[in-house]
């Protein structure tokens, strides 16, 4: 009886034993990374159900209300601030007073019960993000939150993963703008122009780029 396997089967086996797991590992790594970075995992571009179908598009683009009218503490505090029901009612006690969509707002005001909004942009508990310093140093709302002025329902405008944060913390000149344009939407400059302005602003705003990647800047 002849040999069942040809001698090169040994080599094949070795290759399979070593290469098989390696292949599976690499494939797993590749697939896992793709899944992890995908919007499916990060929640990017995903509309979040809210008690009131609030449209930023209508209020910002349509009516021209400034971000700070509702997110009042964005320039002074780590938290941008969510508007108290009273802020909604400052207009809606006069406008759309019987709209069924606004029923939860009126109920909240009448019963003195807050509206529990569902969080759209969620950071991990060990990340300490401060809105006020970003706004002071020329990071526009849309740089992180996307075109909120075009969102009929609000969604997360960026992945909010650490590597995305570091993209700007390593090279802020690619993103920052004059502080007076922070609340402007649709500011889209050609790359070289942005770089030129950005480099100047990094100087003007005394941004220590080498410090921005310290772990302790965001984690404590």
């Amino acid at each position: 009886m002849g040999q069942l396997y040809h001698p090169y089967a040994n080599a094949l086996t070795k290759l399979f034993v070593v290469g098989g797991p390696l292949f599976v590992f690499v494939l797993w790594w590749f697939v896992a990374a793709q899944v992890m970075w995908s919007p499916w995992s990060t929640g990017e571009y995903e509309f979040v159900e809210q008690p009131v179908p609030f449209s930023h598009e209508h209020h910002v683009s349509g009516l021209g209300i400034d971000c700070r009218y509702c997110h009042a503490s964005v320039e002074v505090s780590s938290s941008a601030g969510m508007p108290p029901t009273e802020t909604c009612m400052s207009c809606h006690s006069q406008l759309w007073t019987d709209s069924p969509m606004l029923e939860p707002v009126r109920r909240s005001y009448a019963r003195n019960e807050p509206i529990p909004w569902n969080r759209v942009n969620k950071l991990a508990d060990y990340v300490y993000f401060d809105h006020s310093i970003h706004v002071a140093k020329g990071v526009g709302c849309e740089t992180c939150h996307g075109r909120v002025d075009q969102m009929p329902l609000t969604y997360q405008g960026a992945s909010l993963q650490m590597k995305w944060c570091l993209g700007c913390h390593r090279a802020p000149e690619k993103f920052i703008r004059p502080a007076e344009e922070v609340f402007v939407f649709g500011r889209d400059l050609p790359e070289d122009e942005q770089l030129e302005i950005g480099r100047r602003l990094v100087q003007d705003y005394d941004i220590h780029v080498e410090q921005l990647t310290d772990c302790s800047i965001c984690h404590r």
Partner: protein
Amino acid sequence: MRDEVMNEDVAREDGSGLRFWRGLDELAPGADSSAALDEFADGASEWDDSLGRRRFLQLMGASAALAGLSGCLSGPPDPIVPYVDQPEQVVPGKPLFFATAVPIRGYAEPVLVESHTGRPTKIEGNPAHPASRGATSAQAQAALLDLYDPDRSQTVRFRGGIATWQQFVEAMQAQRARWAATGGAGLRLLTGPVTSPTLAAQLASLLQQFPAARWHVPDPAAPGPAVAVEPRYHFDRARVVLTLDAEVITGQPGSVRYARDLVSRRRVRKGQTAMSRIYAAESTPTLTGALADERLRLRPSEIGPFAEAVAARLGAGEWPAALSPKAQDWAVTVAADLRANRGAAVVVAGETLVPEWHVLVRRLNEALGAIGQTVDYGAPVAVQPPGNGTDLAALVREMTAGRVDTLVMLGVNPVYTAPADLPFAEALGRVETTVHLGSHLDETGFRSVWHVPAAHALETWSDARAYDGTVTLIQPLIAPLYDGRSAHEVLAVLTDGTPTPGYDLVRGFWQRELADRTDFDSFWRQTLRKGFLAGTAASASATTSAESSSVYGRSASSPPGRSMLRPYAGLQPLTSNSEPATLELILRPDPTIGTGEWANNGWLQETPKPLTKLTWDNAALISPSTAKTLGVENEDVVELRYRGQTVEAPVWVLAGQPEGCVTCHLGYGRARAGRAGTGAGFDAYRLRFVDAPWGGPGLEIRKTGKTYALAATNEQWRMHGRDLARSAPISAFIENPDFAHEGEMMELPTLYPGYEYDGYKWGMAIDLTACTGCNACVVACVAENNIPVVGKEEVRRGRHMYWLRIDRYYKGDASDPEEVLHQPVFCQHCENAPCELVCPVNATVHDSEGLNVMIYNRCMGTRYCSNNCPYKVRRFNFLQYTDYDRNDVSALRHNPDVTVRTRGVMEKCTYCVQRISHARIEAKKENRTIRDGEVVTACQGVCPTDAIVFGDMNDRASRVNQLKTEPHNYGLLAELGTRPRTTYLAQITNPNPALRTVQRSAPDEAS
């Protein structure tokens, strides 16, 4: 390596090398220190739970599978809940600070409370208030945890069942109708010390309405007769201080200020030649004795005669009949020093001394010209009840005789704190209506007919006076969590028959009091904002010594202590069935949990007690040589029998304890304290008697043969012969300012260039002369940094989590150490940090300002860093110590600016990086640099003596730099080349050389 270190230990024991020691067994020849050489304490790293390996793997497999799944799901829903109508000052993410006070033993401790959107998270001192100057005690820090204590009483109870406030009000209204007829006969009130003007007015009005009613104040911390005058010291004006069994640094209403003043004359800097001198003659070792330059160890019965001897030398009395030769020498020398500093000297009598000695000490102070200079005697700050108000025995007699039909107990727990010879619990059963207002359903609340949950100080409107009499307002930070009521609200029901909100009561009182102010509204607001009414401090009264001696009823000319002074009986070794030995009993409030009121406070329970370093327990403290004579060791259980009462207590050998004396701390052995306090320790109140509240001679001690495990932290990290604690007398410092660097090894050379820190360069300097070991920083650190409490078992395994430890070193003889040094040790933020080199995942790294930062989310728990840390300051979460449940009330206390760590993560001091971040962001927004003093770490902020200074080392003018350029500034283990950012100013003491050279003078020569 191990042998080397051990040899070094032995080598230095020949007297010249090792000057300081930490544990008594270090002094024992041939002591096996191998256990201490392991990085983690014995058993810390082992899994020795009942769970077997198999079961553990099953569980781990299951949890890994679940963890894999949960990783794919989003986290728990996390809604944003804005206000309906946002209060004007509230900005989410920005804390607000409110000035209020934490009443401790009835006296206000003025504080500022940090509030995050309505949630108090941290207590700081009130910098404007004379009793605080920005600092607090450890207890005031821990008051925050009491607010969120899940064991707090949550409902009104009637005969044990749940009732309502309305029912209580109606029941009291019915009682009022009866009292109206009888004039209140049979109505008795029990309160703690009352300094609140509002409460005092309410009590006065009640006693006026019902003249036959009586009010009693049984304070377990001051059980003596009421005083007519009390001293207030000005240690900042004193060059020489003599304390007689007095603990002034902790536990007193004025301790925070006293500690600051005491140390203010001891901050020795280069070129300075003078510092104050403190003598302490005391029985059980206190922190005051530890701070003192000279400490005389006496039995309690010898304190009075010693005071007499000092007085005799100053011409204020007769030389005592019996006094040990050493004490005689002392009296002569101390008296000479006091006389030489006339007008700048003061003698302090401890609270535990009998009134006659207080009178004598007052006469002494008079002779020294101290009155009006270094001490003022004035009317007591606490309102004294009319008649025999402090006499609990009289009340118990009345109760037993059935003459009391209603007993109202406001914030007291007499069933637990009554002396052993007062059958308070039985007497309570004979009272028809008993009302208890208390934060917990404690021993007294449990036996009372009515129990009303007390609101916490951070939930109530009230007022109180500080130690100096300054009226301090108490305002609520949060609505009562559990429908609690204040003493004002309960009293209002008794006085008016109608419930009135606390705000109306307190504000109404002050509106009447300040009726002549036309601008009361704005004045009230300003006062609330500031926290206190300036100018309300008590003035010194001009009573003479003769008057004060008459207030106690007995004359000062026949001190009673003399009859108590017995010759020191020879002791025999104890065996299980031998005759008991007779010793002297010393009872004292516990240095952390007081007289039991803080027993359920996990932060304080886990704080190592200042000198014993015990946690979660009290013990029978005895001196090393007495222990040797009796043949007992640490953790041996002995039976203590005093006047027929017995308790069993574990022994703890304490250096500096007088021979033949046993100290037991009160406050433990609680039957109904809560999950932290119930069952911890033994109840020393069982040895307390009405006529001997602080113990006395005649204690019998018998060995039981049992042992009881105690959890002490001082034995866990040793210095192995290295010169970590440095100290010198001021004379040596003047001669050689660089003494702290003598014999220091050269820092090893390196081939690598140093890193340039061109921005901020954070550093810290700690003045060991100023550190009193009071533990305020320890608790402040716990509160600020969300540090978990792990419990006694875990502490025993060396798994305690407190970032800041205070190492306590002794110098000299084991029985009577001549010097004590406290050294706060936490992460030194080495520039060349050994921990960083060994982390396989870069979870601990340096940032550009020189902080050694810990990245919790990267840490995978190898513990290599801790192994490689020469300072042993890293703490590992061996188990899930912090509850994940965010709906639990205790989660409310967390500082939102600090990550709550999870199991398997290493943690350590961060230099309060959250406070640095906050200051950096504020400075950057204003385009400026951080100012010196803008970043205050939690430990620095509360330090009563300003011993800790933090700041930017690149700022030449910063305070921290000034300290670091002092010649006696040194780094721990600097020879390793770690370049620690935290450095220490060596301790400078001011011993009196005359005490070592004096020839013993016979009493007849002396007087």
